[in-house]
């Protein structure tokens, strides 16, 4: 049987089945779950490659499990935005590899959490992949729950002092946002009688009858997904959760899971732009402002953190602000920049969390004061960290640059130069933090003997970190590739707006 048409189903299925079998293979040996998770992610990555290749050749395509064409069955739909599965697989794969040594250092894992940890990681990736490729509203919700539940658990699994508390906070806000999304799906279903995204769009087009339910649904979807994406002021759960999780998990959560909220927003836009029911100017304005506040606030809080992981978590809020602002600008440049930043920020943030994780693994410290001088003790890790830092600030020729440039251009294109300023000054604030970090790591004398004597990270951690760091550079130099790739998708998204 030729697999070419089936990859879309397989990419959803593989991580989930792999996850279900992880506790089984754990019976064989202590180390098997790692290898099992790694090989599962390899297959998934291969599927992702095939899918991305296919969209290069054919443009967007669909798969209908069960053979029931939409709207009667569930449709899996792969468009340009779904190509984010590539980065999900990559970061997921590397996170598994990174965890293989990292989890040894956590006391909790010695008591048998390991197989469950990998199961949750696989489930999380599977949920994200399902979320990104599904073309059905309710299916979206189901996969969102898979990834959210595993996300809550992954936060708690590391055994930090506040981990469970942070996880509970995350769970509470996450569950409320999920409920809002479900409620909104109910509303949309109530007025259209269908759950398929494309069909909902079509039936809302030229909709006659009261528009209030659709408007309420829009509001709830945006609030729900904004909570998942941690947009100000719905970000309160994020810093603790991302800082308390084990570092590879933080990389996945910060790099990927929050993006799910953004992808959700893109789907919402697809419905509402496509249906042309409402003029979304006001909503966009609100999003731009919230994005701007997120940028500045996230950066501002980041600057005053001493804990490196907490600082990275705040910087995630700031970067989500960029993406949301780019989406809200609703200009070609802005949306392209935002979409590409979804990819690039995942790479960059994973680099940073991996590098910091390796440093914590080796030294046991996590504040700037304690980690003084670590750059000289762990040169390669610190170089990767610096590359990540340069990228996240958005300095050319690294991955962060072009997206921010495009979002800024989008701001001017939309005739809102003020937000161009906000964007650049946000980058400036973050820049200051990273200068502090680089200064502490390279030019201060170590205060702890453990830091001074630390060796560079072990290969299983160094490899993922360096791979991602070099990708940050490559994606910067080849920055044009993702931009041209996403362009037709953005054009289709914005086409109903005219121009």
């Amino acid at each position, binding site marked *: 049987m030729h697999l070419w048409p089936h990859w879309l189903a397989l990419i959803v299925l593989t991580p989930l089945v792999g996850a279900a079998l992880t506790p089984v293979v754990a019976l064989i040996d202590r180390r098997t779950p790692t290898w099992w998770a790694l090989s599962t992610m390899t297959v998934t990555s291969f599927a992702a490659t095939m899918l991305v290749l296919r969209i290069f050749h054919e443009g967007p395509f669909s798969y209908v499990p069960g053979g029931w064409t939409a709207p009667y069955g569930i449709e899996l739909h792969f468009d340009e935005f779904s190509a984010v599965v590539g980065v999900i697989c990559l970061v997921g794969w590397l996170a598994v590899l990174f965890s293989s040594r990292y989890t040894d250092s956590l006391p909790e894992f010695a008591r048998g959490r390991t197989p469950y940890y990998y199961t949750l990681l696989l489930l999380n990736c599977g949920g994200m992949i399902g979320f990104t490729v599904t073309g059905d509203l309710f299916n979206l919700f189901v996969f969102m729950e898979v990834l959210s539940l595993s996300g809550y658990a992954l936060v708690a699994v590391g055994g930090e002092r506040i981990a469970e508390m942070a996880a509970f906070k995350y769970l509470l806000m996450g569950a409320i946002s999920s409920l809002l999304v479900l409620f909104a799906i109910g509303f949309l279903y109530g007025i259209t009688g269908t759950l398929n995204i494309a069909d909902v769009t079509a039936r809302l087009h030229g909709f006659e009858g009261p528009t209030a339910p659709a408007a309420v649904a829009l509001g709830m979807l945006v609030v729900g997904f904004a909570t998942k994406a941690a947009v100000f002021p719905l970000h309160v759960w994020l810093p603790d959760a991302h800082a308390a999780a084990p570092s590879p998990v933080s990389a996945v959560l910060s790099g990927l899971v929050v993006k799910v909220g953004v992808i959700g927003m893109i789907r919402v836009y697809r419905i509402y732009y496509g249906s042309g029911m409402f003029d979304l100017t006001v909503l966009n304005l609100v999003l731009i402002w919230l994005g701007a506040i997120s940028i500045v606030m996230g950066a501002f809080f980041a600057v005053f953190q001493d804990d490196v992981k907490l600082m990275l978590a705040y910087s995630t809020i700031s970067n989500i602000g960029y993406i949301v602002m780019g989406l809200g600008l609703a200009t070609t440049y802005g949306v392209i920049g935002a979409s590409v930043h979804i990819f690039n920020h995942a790479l960059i943030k994973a680099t940073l969390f991996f590098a910091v994780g390796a440093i914590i693994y080796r030294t046991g410290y996590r504040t700037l004061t304690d980690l003084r001088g670590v750059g000289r003790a762990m040169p390669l890790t610190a170089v990767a960290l610096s590359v990540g830092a340069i990228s996240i600030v958005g300095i050319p020729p690294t991955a962060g640059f072009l997206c921010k440039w495009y979002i*800024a*251009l989008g701001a001017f294109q939309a005739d809102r*130069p003020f937000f161009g300023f906000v964007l*650049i000054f946000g980058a400036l604030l973050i820049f200051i933090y990273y200068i502090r970090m680089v200064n502490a790591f390279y030019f201060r004398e170590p205060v702890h003997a453990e830091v001074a004597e630390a060796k560079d990270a072990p290969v299983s951690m160094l490899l993922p970190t360096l791979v991602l760091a070099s990708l940050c550079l490559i994606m910067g130099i080849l920055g044009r590739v993702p931009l041209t790739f996403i362009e037709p998708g953005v054009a289709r998204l914005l086409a109903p707006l005219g121009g």
Partner: protein
Amino acid sequence: MEVVDIRPLLAPAMSFACAGMVFLFGRKTHWRRFWMLSAATIKMLIVLSMLPGSLQGVVYTFDLVDFTGGIGLGFRADALGMFFALVSSSLWVATTVYAIGYMREDEKRVRFFGFFALCVSTTVGIAFAENLLTFFLFYEMLTICTYPLVIHYETPEALSAGRAYLTYTLIGGAFVLVGTVMVHDATGTISLGHPGILDAGIGTGRLGFIFGLLVIGFATKAALMPLHGWLPRAMVAPTPVSALLHAVAVVKAGAFGIVRTVYNVFGVDLLDGLGFTLPLAALAAFTIITASVIAIFQDDLKRRLAYSTISQISYIVLAASMLTPFAATAAIVHFANQALAKITMFFVAGAIQRTTGKTNVHELAGIGHQMPWTMGAFTVASLSFIGMPLFAGFITKWYISLGALESGQWWFLLVMITSSLLNAAYFLPIVYLAFFKPARGAAAPMKEARPTLLVPTLVCAIWVIALGTTSEVAGMPFSLAEAAVRFVFRM
């Protein structure tokens, strides 16, 4: 004529490599010196090797990366850039020798020399930047690389000066970036390879906005009043750094940015019609006079020099904003004239401090007998600033005055004359003190600075005279400035 050539990239890359070598293998003193000196020499040779071609109107370009649609990193050695690069790379050699002598007993020399090399690298990068983005990139790198030099002694005073420096210049850099994005938004290109890329069709309001952003951004580094606050405070840095900051790299980068904005982003034709340059000129004139007046009352020699720098850099801004060919010549040659004279003075200040430990002006009585060569160099530099014929400073003032007449704005002449008088008022007392006042207490025996400090000082002083006398000699930098002016004014 444009030629694709790797040398514009190679020149900044040279000092990058040097910095890397210093960081990696710089623990041993002699190796560090070897890397520093050879990199400085090779870089100067690379820049010099482009000089003959440049004089004949050849422009060397090299595109490193093109991200998308004209946004990329590129290098372009046109006449203007060559001039700036020539100044900074030749002065790097002098400063390197001086710094090796000056920093002999200091701590953390690896960090110092590594960032020192990076600074010069970025300066040449600024000179050769083909587009605003590359320019901005090197401009910000310069900010970052000078920070460790400013805080070198890590005293509370140095750290606070470093913070002030970073705050000023980073915010300025952000303005530049916003301006750059707006230029790209307005024209679709950010190239610096044309005599102006904006056109009047963009609308006066928007153009004014862009002009304001870019000029404010660059002016923070050029220490144009009222954005000069960081510069006197940054005097806590070691003297070679002060020399580098004030004579070659940082403030010049700001001034160079303004020159690029005026000539290559807007173009003289466009600006002539818009009239944005008049307020800029007024601001520059104000800075020239005010900073000079403040300088008179400074007792700390380096602080006096710092205010003098603020005043002198504004000459470039003033000249650039006159928009006439003569003034443009003045603006460009002043990069060299001011740099050489000012670096001489800083070298002298450092030599005095290292040799006698004196840092204040009133302590300098009779020092001319103790260190005749050093103070002789200082005298040469002072006369240059005052505008005495046969010294480099005269050329600048002469051409600015010509430019003022050309543009019909006679009040610039008044500014020039006042400024010369003020220059005399704060430099000549030092010379007078040094040579004609007896030292307090017993006259110290003659004790010159050590050769590594003295020789660079004298070389720079000689060049001050050379630049003042050879402006008509073909092949000297002056003809390069004329070539740049011809390009800018499409002559």
